């Protein structure tokens, strides 16, 4: 029984770690295609984690979450994104604000901050949820970092997705979190997709590319 | 009761003398000056004759003047005349002593100055305005310097009225003499400017561009001019008496005591004569300044006043 417990924890940990690794790798990527792939991988790992937690906690809500994640984030979304890239042939590397190395160093720092904030200074009261939360928080922060360091609307969407993954990871780590939240997470992803779709649609109408420089040009006109 | 009567009588006498002797004083100054320059000069009564002559001329009113043209001479005279009553001459403790406040006197001088400046602006021609402008410029510093001197007096005697200051000084102590010396110099400078004498102005000058006091009266004639000129004489008289009373208070009579009057009268006339001589001497020995030098001249007076205050403080510390 004890052994099983340990095994459970370590597996959950392992999955979370992999997720974090993907998020971190996302930071290092310059090409959209590779970023999409990484997000997809994140989604798969996430759904696996969700299933595992559902198994452990014995709640069907988590299973549902996993399924939703798998379907939408694991398959639909990457496909859509790939289509967009092909449509606007955004195969070329995305220009980053800062050198990748620097952004990765910052990423490490973010992880440090996340751990520092979540885990109490006095070791001992450290529970699984705390560590889980720390990892989720790191993923969220890394996603945000991706959003802020890439000069390209699509890669911002990707970063946003990564952030979502972190949120879901946190959510499934919460013991007995009521159903509402997962639902709203799914809802959020749904709406996010919808709106992104709307956007991609019209952004193409107005600017040939997804690059935000056109928008910035508008913004430069003092108003 | 008797004392009160005597004081009133003394005041009346004082007023009479002031009003009557003013032109004579002017004559004396002119005479001495002429003598110092080696001329015979006009007779002493010449000012009376000039006034009489002017009175009997028909005044010519400029067509650009307003109704107030004829008011200004009277205003100016009334103010100076009032001062003449307030400033003690041969006797202290006159009936008007209570009102002989230094600041009131300065105010009355200002009134007459304002009247003369307005008279100069009355017809709206260049010379009068130029004179008025210069008068205004001089007025700034002379009034400031005079006020600082008044501050010195007030600090010494603790009494703002001329009469009180003179009474206090008549029992003069030492120790304050340094500052009083400064104050005297400052007062003299102011007096020269206020009475329109050299170096600030030249009463005998006849070049319009150089005149100050006369330039303002350029458009006046007949009895009005006479009144202005008489006022000028009176102003000189007042300043002499003022300086005599404040700085040389010795030998002054007490209005309440009739026996001391003759002595007082004599010493007063003597002081006036001495001052007239000094003025004449000063005038022949200096030249008239350029207009924009005068503020510096008066600025020095102002500084002397300030110095007087400081020395006063030092003296107070020494005596304490």
């Amino acid at each position, binding site marked *: 029984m004890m052994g099983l417990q340990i095994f459970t924890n370590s597996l959950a940990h392992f999955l979370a770690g992999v997720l974090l690794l993907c998020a971190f790798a996302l930071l290092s990527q310059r090409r959209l295609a590779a970023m999409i792939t990484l997000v997809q991988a994140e989604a798969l790992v996430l759904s696996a984690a969700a299933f595992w937690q559902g198994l452990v906690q014995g709640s069907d809500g988590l299973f549902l979450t996993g399924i939703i994640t798998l379907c939408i984030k694991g398959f639909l979304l990457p496909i859509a994104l790939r289509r967009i890239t092909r449509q606007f042939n955004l195969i070329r590397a995305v220009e980053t604000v800062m050198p990748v190395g620097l952004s990765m160093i910052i990423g490490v720092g973010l992880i440090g901050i996340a751990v520092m904030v979540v885990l109490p200074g006095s070791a001992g009261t450290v529970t699984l949820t705390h560590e889980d939360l720390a990892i989720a928080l790191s993923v969220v922060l890394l996603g945000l970092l991706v959003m802020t360091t890439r000069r390209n609307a699509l890669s911002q969407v990707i970063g946003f997705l990564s952030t979502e993954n972190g949120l879901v990871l946190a959510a499934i780590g919460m013991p007995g979190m009521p159903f509402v939240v997962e639902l709203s997470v799914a809802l959020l992803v749904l709406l996010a997709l919808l709106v992104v779709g709307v956007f991609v649609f019209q952004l193409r109408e107005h600017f040939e590319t997804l690059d935000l420089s056109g928008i910035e040009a508008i913004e430069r006109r003092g108003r | 009761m008797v004392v009160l009567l005597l004081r009133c009588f003394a005041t009346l006498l004082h007023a009479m003398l002031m009003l009557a002797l003013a032109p004579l004083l002017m004559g004396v100054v002119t005479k001495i000056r002429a003598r110092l320059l080696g001329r015979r000069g006009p007779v002493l009564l010449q000012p009376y004759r000039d006034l009489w002559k002017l009175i009997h001329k028909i005044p010519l009113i400029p067509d*650009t003047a307003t109704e107030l043209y004829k008011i200004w001479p009277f205003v100016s005279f009334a103010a100076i005349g009032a001062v003449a009553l307030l400033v003690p001459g041969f006797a202290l403790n006159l009936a008007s002593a209570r009102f002989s406040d230094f600041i009131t006197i300065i105010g009355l001088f200002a009134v007459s100055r304002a009247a003369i400046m307005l008279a100069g602006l009355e017809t709206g021609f260049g010379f009068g305005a130029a004179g008025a402008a210069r008068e*205004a*410029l001089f*007025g700034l510093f002379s009034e*400031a310097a005079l006020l600082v001197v008044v501050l010195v007096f007030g600090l010494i005697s603790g009494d703002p009225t001329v009469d009180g200051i003179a009474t206090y000084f008549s029992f003069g102590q030492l120790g304050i003499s340094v500052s009083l010396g400064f104050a005297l110099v400052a007062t003299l400078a102011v007096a020269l400017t206020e009475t329109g004498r050299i170096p600030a102005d030249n009463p005998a000058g006849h070049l319009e561009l150089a005149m100050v006091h006369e330039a303002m009266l350029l458009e006046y004639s007949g009895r009005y001019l006479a009144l202005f000129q008489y006022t000028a004489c009176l102003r000189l008289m007042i300043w002499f008496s003022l300086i005599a009373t404040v700085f040389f208070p010795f030998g002054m009579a007490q209005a309440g005591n009739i026996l001391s009057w003759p002595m007082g009268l004599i010493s007063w006339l003597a002081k006036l004569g001495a001052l007239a001589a000094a003025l004449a001497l000063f005038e022949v020995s200096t030249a008239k300044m350029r207009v924009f030098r005068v503020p510096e001249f008066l600025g020095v007076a102002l500084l002397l006043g300030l110095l007087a205050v400081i020395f006063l403080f030092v003296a107070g510390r020494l005596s304490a």
Partner: protein
Amino acid sequence: MVGLPGRGMHLGIDPLSALFLCLLAPQVVAAAVAVERKSVTFWVFVLGMVLALVAADSFALILGFELMSAASWLLVLRGDRRPDGRPPATLYAGVALFSAACLIPAVFLPAGGIAFVLLLLGAGAKAGLAPLHSWLPRAHPAPSAGVSAVMSGGMVSVALYVIIRYAFIVFGNAAEPWWGTVLMAVGAASVLIGALRCLLEVELKTVLACSTVEHMGLIAVGLGVALRARAMDDPALASLALQAALLCAVAHALFKPLLFLGAGAVHHATGTTSLDWLGGLMRCMPRLGVLMLVGAAGMAALPLGPGFAPEFLLLHAVIAAAGSGGVMAWIGFAALFGILGLSAALALAAGVRVIGFGFLGRPRSLHAAAAEEADRLTLIGMGILAVCCVLVALTPGLLLRAMAPVISEAVPGALPQALAYAPLPLALLMAVLAAVAFVALRRFGARGEREVPAWNGGFGKPPVWLPFGDPATQPIASGFAEPVRRVLGPALLGRAGLDPGERYILAPLSRLHLRLTRLAELVRRATIRQRLAFVFGALVMFLLALGLGQNG
């Protein structure tokens, strides 16, 4: 419950507020009679002042104060029709807000130095005390005459009321001598700069506004002496100085509106208030001229005018105060005395200039030549004020006696002084002398007089095609002030001839503001990504601080 939600507001009248209400009444009546009868904003303005005066708690006071500012701002805005760039309305609103921002803290801080300084900044800015005075000569002339009158006579008085109320009554027991010293220094600066500009300005209304600055300075000096004396518990001196200040406030509240109304009438009659274009108005508008003469006498602080008694008391108070303190105090008081004398002479010259170039001499423009007498209502309004002026001028003693309760309210244990200046006998004396001279000249002198072209140093009669003489030969007001400008200008106004308040306060402020605005523009123009970076950076910083705070 009207007032602050949950707290309401309280009103009440004590001698001080009663005095200022009385001081407000005549000018409001006069202005209403003369010009502003139907303007709602004007009445809101008056309401604000009254509210500020009858307020019994800080909320009501500041509410009234700001209501007054806001209403007058609107009036300035409406009245300000000048084509030149920077309208004073915004500057004016800024000052109003600034004073509110200083007053609210001042009334809530515990009585002490900081509270007093804030109070002085707030109310002083409104009263136009240096160095925060430079808005006043711009804003006060802007609205119509009646409003200018009440602004220059009433609003500044309300600001003074606030200073007196707090410095003497509310903070009174915490007062320290340096408060008075600061007040005196501020007042001296205002007196000097106000009087100088009063002589140098060309626009009549601006001249009057500058003279307002000067008189506020005089009052501030009086209050300063009183406050210092009170802090050094010398009630006799304190009450003397306070008498001077209050009497000055009363006189100023009478003759300044009078002059402003007159300026308005002049503007209405000639279309200009520039002294360089007026002249000879005494001929076509004599009644107005005489009324202006009364006002100018007050402005120039001449004896037998309303302005002299306060000046007299003030100088005596300074003499009495000068004896106290160390050598610095002596030098300071001597310098103060010199400044007072200088500015008194400047004010005299300014008064002479207003009358001499506005109303005497020859017209300098066709408008001035063709001016018509002001309408009856204006004359009535000014007449009311002139009568009050004469009363105050001739019976200051009675007024001081009436003020006794105010003095004893502001200065505990006060013993009001008798006035050593008796205008009535003096007036009688001068009248007698003038009469004697007149009679004598009539009796002994030649009768009759002849009207001739002015001699003008022999330059002769102007040609016929120049109805009022060759303009080139006419002295103008700025020429009259030129010698003073040459002597004092470089020292006090700098080479550019700018008001120090503008050069050292307003200009740097506007530069700073420009710089900060540019900075804000940079933030505003950030791209989406940069804005995201703001959020992210702030979040990280907060988390970092949190982590360090909890683990460090």
